[in-house]
């Protein structure tokens, strides 16, 4: 099972990220992303209704919650892939409301997707090169004059090779991305996101469908991002992974932030247990088993 995997190095946890009590919406000492009153409804269903949340800079923050809690929708709203009904949110002090997704990405907020979006009929190298921003040759008119962009393109290629080496994909660089395995595509997507030197990397379920052997290297790569000074926000269901690498955990349920805190204390929070297990989890309702229930029970046992 993938949840047995642990990063090879002992992660260095960031502490003292918040000001005051670790309650939902608490202030952070140095927030990079602040969302205020972000609400998104689909017809009668309120998918996301976040009153206030701050993401700490330079740390790894996990966004967890049961299925349908609105995590991915919240991701989409923050990155401009979906528009909220109301709300403000800012990144590094710049308001992101009504900013299209591509401009959000140019500001240094890069995301990946739950369903991996490797560009299948492009080679792995072309996938990587596409990740670089500010390319002169991406202008239609300059594209016709190779001498204007050739040098920059070579630099991008060198950088891509270095990144591919780190992610152990360099042997695959001339293959179509479609020929990679699911886990390799996750790695490629992450490596591609790094081509633009982002300040905040948002990973939507980086571990979904990845085999245990790769899980470990993925965890190491996520920890590497932090060592290199990037901020990471990720959605994950795998509680062991969250506990291993996250410095801060935000729990969503039914579109709202119901708890925040460091991974150890947040797992004990009554609101979190209620969100995952239901408020009547003490009573036997028969077979209501889900992966989370087991994972969380396991975790609670671990802690005790």
């Amino acid at each position, binding site marked *: 099972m993938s949840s047995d995997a642990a990063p090879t190095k002992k992660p260095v946890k960031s502490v003292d990220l918040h000001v005051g009590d670790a309650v939902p919406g608490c202030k952070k000492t140095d927030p990079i992303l602040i969302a205020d009153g972000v609400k998104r409804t689909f017809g009668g269903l309120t998918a996301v209704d976040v009153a206030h949340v701050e993401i700490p800079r330079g740390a790894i923050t996990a966004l967890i919650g049961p299925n349908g809690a609105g995590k991915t929708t919240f991701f989409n709203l923050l990155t401009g892939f979906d528009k909220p009904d109301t709300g403000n949110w800012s990144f590094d002090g710049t308001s992101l409301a009504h900013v299209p*997704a*591509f401009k959000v990405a140019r500001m240094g907020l890069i995301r990946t997707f739950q369903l991996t979006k490797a*560009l*299948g009929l492009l080679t792995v190298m*072309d996938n990587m090169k596409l990740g670089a921003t500010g390319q002169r*040759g991406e202008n239609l008119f300059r594209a016709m004059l190779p001498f204007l962009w050739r040098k920059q393109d070579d630099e991008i290629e060198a950088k891509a090779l270095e990144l591919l080496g780190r992610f152990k994909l360099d042997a695959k660089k001339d293959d179509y991305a479609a020929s990679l395995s699911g886990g390799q595509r996750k790695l490629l997507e992450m490596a591609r996101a790094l081509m633009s030197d982002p300040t905040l990397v948002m990973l939507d379920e980086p571990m979904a469908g990845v085999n245990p052997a790769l899980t470990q290297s993925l965890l190491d790569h996520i920890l590497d991002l932090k060592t290199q000074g990037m901020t990471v926000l990720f959605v994950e269901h795998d509680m062991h992974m969250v506990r291993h690498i996250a410095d801060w955990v935000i729990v969503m349920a039914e579109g709202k932030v119901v708890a925040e805190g460091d991974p150890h204390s947040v797992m004990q929070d009554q609101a979190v247990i209620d969100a995952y297990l239901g408020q009547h989890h003490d009573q036997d309702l028969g077979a209501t088993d889900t992966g989370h229930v087991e994972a969380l029970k396991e975790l609670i046992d671990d802690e005790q």
Partner: protein
Amino acid sequence: MIDWGAIFSNAAVELVSPTTAAYALAALGLAVHFGYTGLLNFGQAGFMALGAYGYAISTLTFGFPVWASVLVGVGASVIFALILGIPTLRLRADYLAIVTIAAAEILRLLFTTNTFRDVTGSANGLSEYKDGFRALNPFHFSGTAGFGPWVFSANDWWSILVAWVIVAIACVLVWMLMRSPWGRVLKGIREDEDAVRSLGKNVYAYKMQSLILGGVLGTFAGMIFILPRAVVPANYATSLTFFTWAILLLGGAATVLGPVLGSIVFWVVLSFFSGFVARAVEAGWLPISEVQSGQLRFILVGVAIMLMVVFRPQGMLGNKKEMSFVK
């Protein structure tokens, strides 16, 4: 007995004819749209009609010189692309398909309607716009010249030369663009536009540029198309678009030379079929009338394309490896 020499020499004429070049160029425009960007343009006939009418009307009604008439045609198709693209490029690919097929028909009907008879010539179309183009002809000889089956008049040689030079320039241009970072973004959009958006590219602007570029190629194709014939609105029906698509799929969608090879094969084979069938009917080999034989060639072309798509779906020049990953 069947005159094989005539059948083959007619087919050989198709090999170089400006019509073949026009279809190649229009299909190259579709390759930019569909093969590289993933845009479904079913209105290439509309872009071609704008080239043809833009050129002919500027020359006849306004007396513009050749270069200005060409610019008018190109300008009209850029505006057409913007009108098509602004509302639809934010939506899924199929909306563009619906809008383009309708818009091309609207254009054809506008050119056919009697209301604008003075300018468009209505159903009779336009002719007599070729003087300016012929005045530029550097070939001066009377009668015909050439070798083998390729014996043409000076004006025909001039049309052939201009047509294929434009095709060659367009091929080099598209080839260079598709190897550039700009082309890389287009191919990324074809695969998954959300992924490209998440990497900081303005997908909408790239799709618009692609729509305009492919449309302008279609416009030039429309201008080449009217070199050996008159401008007649009936030529710009949806069948023109679908022949162009057939050529594209025949040659290979995401290739530069595929559309050119596809167009040559399409027209040579079509000419060969029709020549063969017509003479076979005359010789009494086939139990059908001459009118029926005219339709039979399109049936044979249809069968040939179906076989092609079944047994070589990547087209003649396409990359077999690409097909193994298509869902």
